[in-house]
């Protein structure tokens, strides 16, 4: 005998970090079936991109994965620069790398803090946001924006690094190393946190591949795939870093992979700071007065590693100043589709943690 309850989680619910709706069929506390409805944040970015100049579209990509804005910009600009055969000066590439990694750290800080809230720990959230605030101060110094930065532009970056920014980054990195361990300790020292994460939300690697899952979720299932390592962009081939994987395939594995990636990000930033050369920070072909005249022709599909996985951008240009078609292959969109499989048969409390560990961002799912 079974007692069905149909529970509606979302669109606005503390556990859905963003707005999607999970219609959960419950047999007492056990999840029998999950039906995901998305589209509550469909902001037609792809349509608007067709109406705007190439250079203006960066802001819409900023707002896709809104917690990891730098990597989104980078994804778009890589595509545009490939389309236009635009060279990016060396200094600008290193600056982009530093910013992309900082942004990755900032995004992870939100994810980890929210995971803490979801398991019922209030405290780590505030500590992670304190760290995130420091990164945002660096962004403000560099670009003027806190979160949706619009820092990179075609052919380089908006503004050069000055000594203040470099010192701030160095200061942040120095403090963050210890702070990260402290935050992680808050989680891993708790027996209950282990109890709730180990063995829940298991994702088998073949299912993950079948559904097109990428990013930390795929790595936590045991497949060491990272765009930064496998097909390096910027200068990721000139720095040393490791791609962590987890064998356990569960929520705890995902958490630990994310944490280890934070450590690797710190490593990358340190190497970048050491290697940062002097030189121009934008390509003179894309100077401000000429930006609106940049044209592109042909098809291009490039990808970068964003905080939630492989972010690919497809652009078709018809030789005009506006793109003919822009399409984003967003990782969260795919990652979210496996939630029903991961959650089936588990308790509702596990479902909540599974959703948190997927860490999908609504802006990127719906675009």
């Amino acid at each position: 005998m079974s007692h069905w309850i149909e529970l509606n989680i979302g669109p606005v619910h503390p556990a859905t970090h963003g707005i999607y709706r999970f219609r959960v069929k419950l047999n007492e506390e056990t999840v029998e079936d999950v039906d995901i409805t998305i589209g509550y944040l469909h902001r037609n970015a792809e349509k608007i991109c067709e109406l705007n100049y190439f250079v203006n579209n960066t802001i819409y990509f900023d707002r896709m994965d809104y917690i990891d804005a730098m990597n989104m910009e980078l994804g778009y600009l890589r595509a545009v620069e490939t389309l236009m055969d635009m060279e990016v000066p060396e200094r600008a590439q290193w600056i982009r790398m530093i910013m992309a990694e900082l942004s990755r750290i900032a995004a992870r800080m939100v994810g980890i803090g929210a995971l803490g809230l979801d398991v019922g720990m209030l405290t780590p959230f505030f500590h992670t946001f304190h760290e995130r605030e420091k990164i945002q101060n660096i962004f403000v110094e560099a670009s003027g924006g806190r979160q949706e930065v619009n820092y990179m532009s075609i052919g380089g970056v908006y503004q050069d690094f000055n000594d203040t920014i470099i010192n701030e980054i160095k200061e942040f990195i120095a403090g963050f190393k210890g702070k990260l361990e402290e935050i992680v300790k808050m989680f891993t020292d708790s027996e209950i946190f282990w109890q709730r994460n180990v063995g829940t939300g298991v994702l088998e690697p073949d299912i993950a591949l079948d559904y097109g899952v990428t990013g930390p979720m795929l790595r936590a299932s045991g497949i060491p795939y990272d765009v930064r390592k496998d097909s390096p962009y910027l200068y990721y081939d000139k720095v040393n870093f490791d791609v962590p994987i987890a064998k356990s395939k569960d929520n705890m594995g995902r958490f630990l992979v994310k944490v280890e990636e934070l450590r690797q990000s710190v490593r990358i930033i340190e190497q970048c700071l050491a290697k940062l050369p002097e030189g121009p920070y934008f390509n003179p072909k894309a100077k401000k007065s000429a930006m609106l005249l940049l044209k592109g022709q042909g098809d291009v599909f490039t990808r970068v590693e964003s905080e939630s996985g492989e972010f690919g951008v497809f652009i078709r240009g018809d030789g005009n100043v506006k793109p003919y078609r822009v399409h984003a292959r967003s990782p969260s969109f795919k990652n979210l589709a496996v939630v029903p499989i991961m959650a089936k048969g588990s308790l509702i409390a596990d479902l909540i943690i599974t959703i948190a560990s997927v860490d999908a961002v609504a802006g990127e799912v719906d675009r």
Partner: protein
Amino acid sequence: MSLLFRIHQWFSFLGNFASYGLAYLIQSIVVLIFVALSFVALIYIFRKYMARIQRRIGPNRVGKFGLLQLIADALKLIGKESILPENRDDMAYKIAPVIVMIATILAFVLIPFGDLAYFGSLAVTHSKVTLVLMFGILSIIPIGEVLGGISTKSNYALLGTMRAVAKDISFEIPMMISVLAIVIVSSRSYVTGDAITGGLSLSGIVSNEIIPYGIIEPLGLLIFFISMIARASYSPFDLGESDSELISGYTTEYSGMRFGFFYIGLFGMVYLSSFLISLLYLGGSNGPYDSYVGFIYLFIKTDILVLISFLIWVAIPRIRIDKFVDLGWKYLLPLSMVNLVYAGLFVLYIR
């Protein structure tokens, strides 16, 4: 000499019956006002303390240092519209917060507050069975929660109630058994080894508790503390509410002052459970010169316990319901049985 008797003497011109009635009333009000004030201070401390742990400042704009924050909250809740859900079970919906509120107030009246200088004993109730009454009342509060959860006909509230019931059943038995062990131990004075009476009243237990029972049976203290966290239902055992999963569990559909009652019930339970632990296991108002400042001892012990509770609240994640039921039945219950046998052997030994 007790405060009750003194008030009775002041009003003795009204005759025996009326003056006793008046004395009970006045003292209840005095005690409740005191409890309410300390309760307000407690929530203020909780907020500041939590903020401090979380690198924040906490309320500091309302009144000096934000002291009036809770008054503002209360005023707002009173002025708030109370929405009645359409599919509610009307009577159950309306009566549930009242049950929680009244039970919380009643429980505070039963506490023997100890002696204070000129006033003597501050206890309101001089019944011989306050222990039984107290745990009776503690069992009434869940009824309010269950009624509130089921009557709103909301799925979140229903799930929250199911969890709350499962939680209540699995911890109340170990709790009661560990209290039984206290009653057994306090049936004989461990100073003289003589049989003594008064083991069913809180004040009787406290008066016999020269060495705190927490030292004699630490296992009992542990079980009782865990049970009391579950009873007060804060993190890690806030299963009935579980903010991030079930919005706010059985209180989801309550608004305005009706929600305020539940809110008071939650914090009141934290306070009450700290009182109970310090009475039963930490010696209550016992200490040097306790006939003058016993009340202060009780108060200090309780407040330290409250702070420990808050620390647990903000630092520990929520346990999953099946793990909690496991904990209750597989660990707490056998342990409390062991504790009970140990208490019996202890009594035999001191005899």
